[in-house]
């Protein structure tokens, strides 16, 4: 039997089994209590079609004793959490969960939980990672995970529709999903006229409030036919499928709005390619990577590009391109460098902070293109601090420094008004000085036709 000493800190809620970290691989251990379900699933050949369709993370049964079964799942490079997904990434994860429940019902199984953490992004698509979430379907029983689906998926998506994508970030403070009563209170009154929103959110909130104190779960038998349950799933699916953000998406022409001449743009692309591809670096984290334009130049030679940006629209646009181009090695990440997602849940390590996950993944290079002026002038982050931050993440840093004459820098400085003199330190000399404490400057090139400099730096031994 596997020692529970290496049990992953997020893996304690479900008695069916747990996750272990063994060397460099993550494994799933099944407890005897779940053997009957697991055996039935295998007997029905439940998993194979899901592996083929890439809806469930593939696994191999590695070891079997009376005390445990050990599964070795396909390894995921970087697990991202719901509050790091863009709206459409979130939506696809929700649809995947409903699809799986529908598939399970066809075979007389049912998802026993519908947590958004059961899904992550892998090879360009959402994939269900909690193999032990399937349970026997009990004839005419309602869906036990229904409330969880609403709190983890439906409520955040509907709130994002009415209030903007920022609403999805509420998941960071609600590890068990958005409480239905809170979601109901935040929705406009007119949503009570929608049969889907009224029943799934408003009525549910009312029923929950009414039966909250009643703790006699076995005193009444609640029935719902399979056909009824299917209708419920299908209507949620159709509703979510049509759900869109109300916000305008006008990022498409972002690169036309910046102060780049085509000459400078191409120069930058070629330079990055020379340093990253030429250096044989295959895991790249692009901070402030926008819609992935620059990372995409390198993509064919990478194992994985994680493109992080604070701008939701850019992340969502990046994801749209991942889908259209069927890219398997590009991971769009909604990320604020001045406020990266923290460790949350039990002991603050049930869900690791993004920095911890990024470090564990280990990017071989970090791109920080046209982002240092935002960090320094909008975020007021001193050069020494940003240098240390980058040095903690990687050993190779490609960083672009816009000088004081750059129009963006000038506009950021003008916004400081009477405090503009407090930002005199924003200049190339002080930047280099501070970064030299952590890095050696390997190469430095002026981008023609711009007031920007591109650096290749390596951490000091």
């Amino acid at each position, binding site marked *: 039997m596997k020692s529970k000493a290496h049990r992953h800190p997020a893996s304690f809620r479900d008695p069916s089994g747990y996750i272990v970290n063994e060397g460099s691989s993550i494994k799933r251990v099944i407890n005897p209590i779940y053997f009957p379900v697991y055996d039935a699933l295998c007997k029905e050949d439940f998993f194979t*079609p899901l592996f083929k369709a890439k809806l469930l993370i593939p696994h191999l049964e590695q070891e079997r004793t009376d005390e445990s079964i050990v599964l070795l799942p396909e390894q995921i*490079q970087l697990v991202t959490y719901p509050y790091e997904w863009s709206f459409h990434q979130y939506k696809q994860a929700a649809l995947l969960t409903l699809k799986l429940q529908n*598939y399970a019902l066809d075979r007389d199984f049912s998802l026993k939980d519908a947590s958004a953490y059961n899904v992550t992004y892998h090879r360009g698509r959402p994939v269900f990672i909690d193999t032990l979430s399937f349970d026997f379907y009990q004839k005419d029983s*309602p869906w036990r995970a229904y409330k969880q689906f609403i709190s983890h998926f439906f409520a955040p998506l509907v709130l994002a529709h009415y209030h903007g994508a920022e609403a999805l970030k509420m998941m960071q403070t609600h590890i068990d999903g958005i409480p239905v009563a809170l979601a109901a209170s935040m929705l406009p009154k007119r949503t009570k006229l929608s049969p889907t929103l009224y029943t799934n959110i408003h009525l*549910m909130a009312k*029923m929950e409030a009414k039966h909250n104190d009643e703790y006699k779960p076995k005193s009444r038998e609640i029935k*719902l036919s399979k056909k009824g349950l299917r209708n419920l799933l*299908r*209507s949620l699916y159709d509703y979510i499928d049509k759900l869109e953000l109300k916000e305008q998406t006008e990022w498409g022409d972002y690169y036309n709005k910046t102060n780049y001449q085509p000459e400078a743009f191409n120069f930058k692309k070629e330079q990055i390619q020379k340093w990253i591809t030429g250096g044989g670096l295959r895991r790249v984290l692009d901070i402030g990577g926008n819609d992935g334009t620059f990372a995409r130049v390198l993509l*064919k030679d990478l194992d994985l590009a994680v493109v992080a940006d604070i701008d939701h629209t850019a992340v969502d646009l990046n994801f749209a391109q991942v889908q259209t181009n069927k890219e398997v090695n590009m991971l769009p990440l909604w990320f604020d460098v001045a406020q990266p997602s923290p460790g949350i849940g039990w002991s603050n390590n049930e869900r690791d902070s993004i920095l911890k996950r990024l470090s564990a993944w280990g990017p071989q290079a970090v791109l920080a293109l046209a982002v240092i002026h935002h960090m320094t002038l909008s975020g007021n982050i001193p050069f020494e601090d940003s240098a240390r931050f980058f040095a903690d993440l990687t050993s190779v840093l490609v960083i672009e420094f816009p000088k004081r004459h750059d129009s963006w820098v000038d506009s950021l400085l003008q916004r400081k008004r009477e405090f503009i003199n407090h930002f005199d330190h924003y200049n190339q000399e002080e930047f280099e000085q501070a970064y030299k404490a952590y890095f050696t400057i390997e190469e430095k090139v002026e981008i023609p036709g711009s007031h920007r400099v591109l650096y290749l730096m390596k951490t000091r031994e």
Partner: protein
Amino acid sequence: MMGYFTMMFLYFDPGLGAMLVQAIVAAAAGIVLFSKNFMYKVKSFFGLTKSQKDGIDTIDYEQDEKQPNEEQGS
């Protein structure tokens, strides 16, 4: 088996209200789906329908993907 269900029961609280409300949600969903289906039939009678897209029953096995140079899990 008995032990198994008891454990599952302790796993998390599905919420009594949420269990009860499902019958009503399902009934409303049934009506919505029925009327949509009806409208679809009316529209298709007049030749106004677009082709049906990916739905809950669609499981797509054929995915043609761009392979990076033999990817490895880390």
